[in-house]
């Protein structure tokens, strides 16, 4: 009786705790890698080292969030990379102009929202598979980025570069802020709708969830996050590069998959995806410090991703057998 009363009081928090289910293994692996990294590179524990590390991780964390948001909703995006590039070139071309840095930031955010929403409308209204629409979109967006800025250049104010990619842990602070925003979003009917539509669209529709609106929202928010990554990357490098985002497409999927986000929708958690991206980022750093050749790094990365997907699948098969 007492326990029932308690759980009633704290339904929100007990639901939150339950979402850690099945992630303990991942937490341990990430912890071990972080430990190994801290031993190889003790500078990680200082402010400056921590800031540099989180700045390297930050763009990957954000694109992974953007991808996980879509995968939870039963979609996927192959246009993450080009959209990062688009964000970067828009930032680099507007910030020096009449709009100024704030105007540039708004322009990047607006273009991300708009492109995402447009893809979402096409996917939701025309009922086309997201993978095809975003594949086509990746070519179009990549092309537009090249038209806006054919070769690396543009202008990013120094103070912005120093703020985002300097010696302070601003990026980490922004990540924490984003996670709080995600928590709030997930506590709205629309946010939970992301899960419901991803897992059982017909059931969600019958329950009164506005399925199409949820889909468009997911794509729009994902686009916003992705374009903002472009701004960050531009600040990091001090200029806009029309192809800088390319590796992010597949890395965002890799991070989400490492974090236990399922391909069929409705399965996984954002905290898992964030951990997945952290694991990917630390892994690359550790291998770099251990002196792996780039080729070996790629192969090892691939094997680890494969293992991350195969292990849960195999254990569930084994546990099903009597």
């Amino acid at each position, binding site marked *: 009786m007492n326990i*029932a009363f308690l*759980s*009633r*009081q704290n*339904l*929100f928090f*007990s*639901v939150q*705790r*339950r979402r850690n*289910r099945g992630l303990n293994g991942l937490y341990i692996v990430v912890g071990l890698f972080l430990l190994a990294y801290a031993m190889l590179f003790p500078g990680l524990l200082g402010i400056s080292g921590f800031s540099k590390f989180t700045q390297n991780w930050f763009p990957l964390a954000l694109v992974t969030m953007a991808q996980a948001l879509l995968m939870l909703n039963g979609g996927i995006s192959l246009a993450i990379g080009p959209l990062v590039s688009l964000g970067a070139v828009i930032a680099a071309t507007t910030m020096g102009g009449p709009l100024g840095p704030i105007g540039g930031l708004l322009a990047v955010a607006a273009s991300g929202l708009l492109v995402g929403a447009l893809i979402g409308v096409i996917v939701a209204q025309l009922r086309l598979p997201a993978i095809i629409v975003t594949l086509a979109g990746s070519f179009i967006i990549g092309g537009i980025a090249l038209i806006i800025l054919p070769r690396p250049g543009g202008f990013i104010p120094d103070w912005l570069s120093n703020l985002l990619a300097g010696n302070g842990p601003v990026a980490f602070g922004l990540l924490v802020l984003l996670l709080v925003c995600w928590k*709030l979003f997930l*506590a*709205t*009917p629309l946010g*939970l*709708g992301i*899960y*419901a539509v991803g*897992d*059982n669209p*017909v*059931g*969600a*529709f*019958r*329950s*009164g*969830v506005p399925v199409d609106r949820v889909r468009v929202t997911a794509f729009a928010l994902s686009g916003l996050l992705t374009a903002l990554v472009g701004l960050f990357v531009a600040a990091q490098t001090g200029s806009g590069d029309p192809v800088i985002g390319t590796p992010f497409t597949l890395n965002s999927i890799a991070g989400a998959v490492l974090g236990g986000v399922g391909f069929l929708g*409705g*399965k*996984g958690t954002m905290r898992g995806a964030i951990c997945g991206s952290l694991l990917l980022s630390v892994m690359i750093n550790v291998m770099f410090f251990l002196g792996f050749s780039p080729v070996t790094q790629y192969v090892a990365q691939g094997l680890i991703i494969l293992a991350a997907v195969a292990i849960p699948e195999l254990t569930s098969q084994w546990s099903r057998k009597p």
Partner: protein
Amino acid sequence: MMKTLPLLEARQVFKGFFGNPVLKGVDIALEPGRVHALLGENGAGKSTLINLLSGALRPDSGEIRVDGVPVSRFHPAAARAAGIAVVQQELSLTAELSIAENIGLGAFPRRFGLIDYAALSARASEVCELVGLTESLCTPVGDLSLGRRQMVEIAKALFRKPRVLILDEPTSSLSAHEAGILSRLIERLRGAGIALLYISHRLNEVQALCSHVTVLKDGVVTADQPLAGIDAQGLVRLMVGRDAGDLFPAWELPRRGEELIRLRGFSSGLARDVDFSASAGEIVGIGGLVGQGQEDFLLGLYGAMGSSAREAVIAGRSGPLKSVEAANAAGLAYVPADRKREGLVLPHSIASNLLLPSLGRIAKLGLRDRGAERNLVARLVKRLRIKGETSRPVQALSGGNQQKVALAKWLPLAPSVLLLNDPTRGVDIETKREIYLMLKSFAREGTLIILLSSDTPELVHLCDRVTVFGEGRAVATLPRELISEEAIVGAAMGINPKGSAP
């Protein structure tokens, strides 16, 4: 006499799909404080009627009335606003979300735009108590058994405080204990003045819970009366009996050959502990309500699904078949129900579909023999009277002709056992007759035909024996002289058929 105003009613509704009428002028009225049963065979139009009442579909003509007022442009949101809740057979839950979140989905209490978890928790635990869900509200639904999920689904409907509650086969996945809770709950809701529509294939439940019954048969209401004074046999009689006309060829005594299939304690998928035997030249029917393990039984026989048996002899081999290749080698062929997805390669030509199973067989030195292929296709097309140029893609054919292609492609292998899964579903009358004649002639040539069908008259007129499935078990095997629609439907609904030998 005082008449209570119905909360929800359908008046003379007609609904058809692709020119095929499903409901032909149906009336139903749901009154407050009454449990109304809706009965009918597979395909009688029950689901369509539910969809009309809940706004998921709109009638072609006729009207839906809420509180006596006709509603135009009825849609699911309007139905919800009018207090109509439906518990569908397929669940509408999200596995990753908690019980409470699932219950509130689409109707969350909010505060400042956020879900008010405190209010949700209080109201969800109220409805959970009603349906006897004792699990913690934060348990993800994916952790629950099917029966418990069904209870969550019912709690979800109650959460919206409905005035009309439609329950479509709510007990099909419930344990006896849960079903007991549900029936007490229904009593309570009835007492609270809610109008209930109860769809079930379990006649004893219907008789225990309901006070009024509407029976549908082929889209027409055959009874709309108080349940008192009508027994189970009478209900079954109202549900069956169709004018078959001269659709079916005359039944003839089979020339029984050697025993091809003998199973003892055969299990695969939903089908459990089935005893079954059949001989060459017979047409053996597999009947029962949809989804009682019949399909799994066929797939298990065919080696497409894992199976086990105490004793099994299939086409002269002992032990259950382990793979489709083994089944084909033993002379078994399977024609799936979903011909578009499983039976045919739609964009390919009629000819290449017909050749697919025999490609390897008529090749010479590993290369295709075009001449032999052409002959074979010509022979099959002639024998099955498949209309249309054989180079056209199969998807250009009508449903009936597609089915004939799906059937014909196996003939060159001269199967000794033909497993058919609902071969006439969605097929026009003329082609149906052709298919029936074909089956008869195959049987005459000594093929064993196992015919799974959801169309009861088909089983009655074609089969030499019918095995009826219920909840995964072969509940009755009716010999020719006992086969009737009443007997098949009765056996499927758990009424002991007279003189049935298992």
